[in-house]
């Protein structure tokens, strides 16, 4: 009795807020739903970006906040583009990106192609293969330091066992020649499953009847692979390559823990240089300019990526 009265009263009393929300138009609701996300991104991503752009024209140093900030114009950008070390870092990054992508694409596609033979238990083994890519690159990269340890490390031991090189001479992380390959091996180990998974989706998207038609036309297996399998899976392979390209271009965590850019600066990829300049030398203005240059490069890649993505979607 009492409940019902209360109910009626509640129904009769127009709650101002409830009424406002109920009376809201679809357009208003759309903005109500979308704007919090946009505002957050403006505050945490875009505002800092503009701040970085401003800083990139100055000689500001974050460890000396009270010093007078001077406007340098484009001097920082000029210095970066003329800086020998920056070009070395870009070369190191290019070497790392090129080889990781090449290895991951070749191995990943091969694995996907083999899994697509649909042998018994392929789902289980696929899940096992996928595990490394879900793990923290920092925490696992740190542990690879132990595997690479000369003599006592498992990796070095296996290499010396197979090749006969004395175990103390397998110095993956301190040898100038080997260190760039040490980071490529770990990255390939982690991210080949990623390429594999996308390639697998590509292979599975090819309709069976195309192969049946090819079979009727007596196309050889080799011919089928080059004329059907590869071209039809290509958009997926491209998608994987672009994603890995962007990710590895900004690679930081795994390399930072594995080698820290060393020995010397042989594995100093762009993000490591940036970190050294920004948080060790505290050249905030200079490193902001470098950051902006990297932004522009990644944005170029991102644009290509989105176009490729739309192509894949259209299929």
């Amino acid at each position, binding site marked *: 009795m009492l409940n019902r009265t209360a109910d009626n009263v509640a129904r009769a009393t127009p709650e101002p807020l409830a009424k406002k*929300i109920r009376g*809201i138009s*679809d357009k208003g*609701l*759309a903005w109500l*739903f*979308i704007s919090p*996300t*946009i505002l*957050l*991104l403006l505050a*945490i991503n*875009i505002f*800092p*970006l503009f701040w*970085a752009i401003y*800083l990139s024209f100055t000689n500001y140093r974050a460890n000396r906040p009270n010093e007078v900030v001077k406007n340098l114009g484009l001097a920082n950008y000029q210095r970066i583009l003329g800086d020998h070390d920056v070009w070395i870092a870009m070369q190191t990054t290019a070497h790392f990106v090129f080889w990781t992508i090449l290895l991951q694409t070749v191995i990943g596609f091969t694995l996907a192609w083999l*899994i697509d*033979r*649909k042998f*018994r*238990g*392929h789902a289980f083994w696929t*899940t096992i*293969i*996928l*595990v*490394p*890519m879900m*793990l*923290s690159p*920092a925490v*696992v990269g740190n*542990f*690879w330091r*132990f*595997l690479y340890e000369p*003599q006592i490390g*498992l990796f070095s*031991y296996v290499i010396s066992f197979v090749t006969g090189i004395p175990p103390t001479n397998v110095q993956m992380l301190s040898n100038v020649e080997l260190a760039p390959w040490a980071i490529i091996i770990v990255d390939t180990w982690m991210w080949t*499953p*990623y390429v594999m998974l996308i390639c697998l989706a590509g292979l*599975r998207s090819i309709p*069976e009847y195309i192969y*049946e038609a090819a*079979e009727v036309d007596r196309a050889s297996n080799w011919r089928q692979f080059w004329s059907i399998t590869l071209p039809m899976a290509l958009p997926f392979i491209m998608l994987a390559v672009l994603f890995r390209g*962007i990710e590895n*271009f*900004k690679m*930081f965590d795994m390399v930072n*823990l594995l080698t820290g850019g060393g020995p010397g600066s042989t594995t100093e990829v762009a*993000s490591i240089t*940036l970190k050294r300049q*920004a948080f060790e030398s505290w050249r905030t203005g200079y490193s902001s300019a470098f*950051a902006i240059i*990297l*932004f522009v490069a*990644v*944005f170029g890649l*991102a644009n290509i990526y989105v176009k490729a993505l739309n192509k894949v979607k259209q299929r």
Partner: protein
Amino acid sequence: MSLTTAHSVVAPSSNAKLIAGTIIIAYALISIVPLLWIFATSFKTPPDSIAYPPKIVFQPSIEGYCNLFTTRTRQTPEYINSLGPATGFCDETVRKRNMVIAGPSNFLPRFVNSLIIAFGSTFCAVFLGTLSAYGFSRFKVPLADDLLFFILSTRFMPPIAVAIPIYLMYRELGLSDTALGMILLYTAVNVSLAVWLLKGFIDEIPREYEEAAMIDGYTRLQAFWRTVLPQATTGIAATAIFCLIFAWNEYAFAALLTSGTAQTAPPFIPTIIGEGGQDWPAVAAGTTIFLVPILVFTILLRKQLLRGITFGAVRK
């Protein structure tokens, strides 16, 4: 009668299957070795862990876990003998190495920080992401494609480049080394993934459900709440797990923006050192504890994995 459907002409031969299976299983076993080695090392004693040749068979010990959770000081045997009987297994193990437990290590608080920051940011990202995804999916938003691209593009920024101004901004706002600061940052990074993934999931829910509900007298908001959300549960759960894994694994921001009270586990684990270098069994123990939740989630997620890693671009 069923001759035509019984066997596909293009099915791989059993020989091909055998070869494919062998190679895949071999790759899977080799690629899992580093993880098994982490697990094995966590149960080795420090001398066993650095033995040459590397020990595959060893006497298991939980010394690594003891060392992970405690800090210890070296003492003279006379002093240790003067103490009462050991109070537990860890105490006993440590005393054999002429050490005494001095107190708890920082691992547990760092692990708790990881939990708070990962769950906090996941909740915020999924909440904001669901609203935005619904907005983009159901309404005509002006410049929708540009806004969606803007949201995605924030994900492509190199973390170190973002960290420089964030570091300065957080210093001004007093958010340096706080859980709140990290939650805000991870929310901003994850919300792009959440919007893109959830938009895909919500696009798949037929509009007719809401329209029927609205004809029955529900408002748009009630229709969203009562018909769309229940239908999107799987998608929301999968998205949440992806956000959780990202926040859990993140290292670059955590290493640069936290140092003490809000530090998460990834920057902490590499700093675990014993006497004379890294204490590998303790590092392995921390790594094992840190990785187990991710292994569980990976198995739960395996059907949605493809979608998650491509921002919803590829669906099965």
